[in-house]
């Protein structure tokens, strides 16, 4: 079925990739500046904040799903936007889902930069922003790794897409929701095909991550 490039399978795979990529891009735009802000400033409760972020790495997808569901359902505060059971709803959910891991890993990446390098930059006359620039640049590969981890989490989650997206055929059906639906319907062959694609994507993600860690 993969070999024959079944149009529906390909459409689902394309949609999954597009949703995860969009969520990942938006989350990156939020996570990188916010993490840098946290890392390069000292304030009360910084440690606690980082701990909270790290705890949220493993928040169950259904909990985020429930949270987003409540917010964007008809009766919720954002109900009037009609986001429930739309791709946009999924994106909102995925952004929230991957933000903690992206931020946490970005902060770790920045912390991982040798303090001697920071001292060297300062001694060479860098001001605060120039120092931050150097540190971010040194952490670039580890930070890219954080982004890819976020992408991996977004593309592989199922609970959230199911609850917020509703698995509507041709609209919000993704690889993971399709697999869970088709399997329960007994369409094992289709599920396997979708599963293979997901596995392939996961493989690519992990290869890229490995490559980055070697830099």
């Amino acid at each position, binding site marked *: 079925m993969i070999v024959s490039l079944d149009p529906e399978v390909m459409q689902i795979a394309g949609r999954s990739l597009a949703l995860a990529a969009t969520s990942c891009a938006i989350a990156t735009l939020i996570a990188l500046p916010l993490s840098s802000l946290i890392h390069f400033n000292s304030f009360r409760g910084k440690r606690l904040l980082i701990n909270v972020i790290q705890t949220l790495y493993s928040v169950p997808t259904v909990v985020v799903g429930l949270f987003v569901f409540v917010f964007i359902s008809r009766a919720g505060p954002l109900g009037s936007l009609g986001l429930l059971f739309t791709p946009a709803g999924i994106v909102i959910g995925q952004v929230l889902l991957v933000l903690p891991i992206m931020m946490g890993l970005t902060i770790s990446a920045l912390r991982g930069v*040798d303090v*001697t*390098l920071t*001292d*060297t*930059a*300062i*001694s*060479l*006359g*860098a*001001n605060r922003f*120039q120092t931050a620039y*150097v540190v971010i*640049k*040194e952490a670039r590969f580890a930070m890219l790794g954080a982004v890819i981890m976020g992408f991996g989490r977004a593309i592989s989650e199922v609970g959230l897409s199911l609850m917020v997206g509703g698995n509507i055929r041709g609209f919000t059906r993704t690889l993971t929701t399709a697999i869970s639906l088709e399997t329960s319907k007994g369409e094992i062959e289709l599920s396997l095909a979708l599963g293979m694609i997901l596995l392939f994507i996961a493989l690519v993600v992990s290869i890229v991550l490995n490559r980055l860690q070697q830099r």
Partner: protein
Amino acid sequence: MSTSEPIIETTDLGQRFNGQDVLRGINLSIERGEVFALIGPTGSGKTTLLRLLDLIDTPSQGKVYFDGTDVTESTGQRLEARRRMAFVLQKPVVFNTSVHDNVAYGLRWRGMSRDSIRNRVDEVLEMVDMADFHKRNARMLSGGEIQRVAIARAIATEPEVLLLDEPTANLDPVSTARIEGLIGDIIQRYQTTIVMATHDMSQGQRLAGRVGMLLNGEILQTGGWHEAFNTPRNREMANFVGIENIIDGLVLTSEDNVVTIGTNHSVIEAISDFAVGDRVHACIRSEEVTLALSPISSSARNSFSGEITRMTSTGPVARVEIDCGFRLVALITNRSAGEMSLEKGKSVHASFKATAVHVIKQD
């Protein structure tokens, strides 16, 4: 009064970490154009002091003046002063980019134009003998090459003050000589004021005109090398500057600045103004001790006979340990050791001048 103001001055400078004083009461004055060496055992606070001088850290006490201005507090003034200095850290690191960019950073941060940066980078890489390394990733360089990049990066900005923290630690003799030559070139070419921490006292002597001795976070003394080597302030420093003969004793007589010091069964004569009854250490550098097979003259002071207990030789010098009631070490040339056919078990006469004895009080 000197006409020019010191380029760096500290008053009662102190630093604490975790409630512990790491530096105390540092009053240091670095003149424009001088080369100043900081020596002291590991953990004495050399790096901590250099970091304060480069305004990387803020002191927990005291003030730092740069070119006459108090730069202890204001962030803006600190940055401005820091941009007139450069600091080669004890553990040199390079940015994960090309050698060229490593050297260019400091210039870019000062807003220099692209063309001037290129010229300047060319010039300093030429100077450190790394003209062919422009495009190489700096992470892939050897330790000695990294140190040269670190120095190039520092001098690129034409600093008025160059701070060096053990610039040749962990380098082999060839790289050490190379870096040392480079520092010599910088001194010649730019007349840069240099403050360098070093554990290598012969290197310090070759490069620096003045030395400050740091011990347990305090500057014990500053001055010329002769003073540092021959008149250390306490036993620990005497040990640190390589005085091998430190003999404990009691002042027996004291007259016209001449004292006699009793130790075990012998009496040592020295020039000093300690009072009778003071407990002291008599310090004699081993190169000040001369050896002979027969007593030079019966009336000679500080002449002791004893038996050689150990002999070792390194290069052209022989180190001879003698038991003459107390242990005495002499450094003589291998040649004279050969002429006297000195060997373990042989009896010799050791002597040293009263002026060669430096007396310090016991703690």
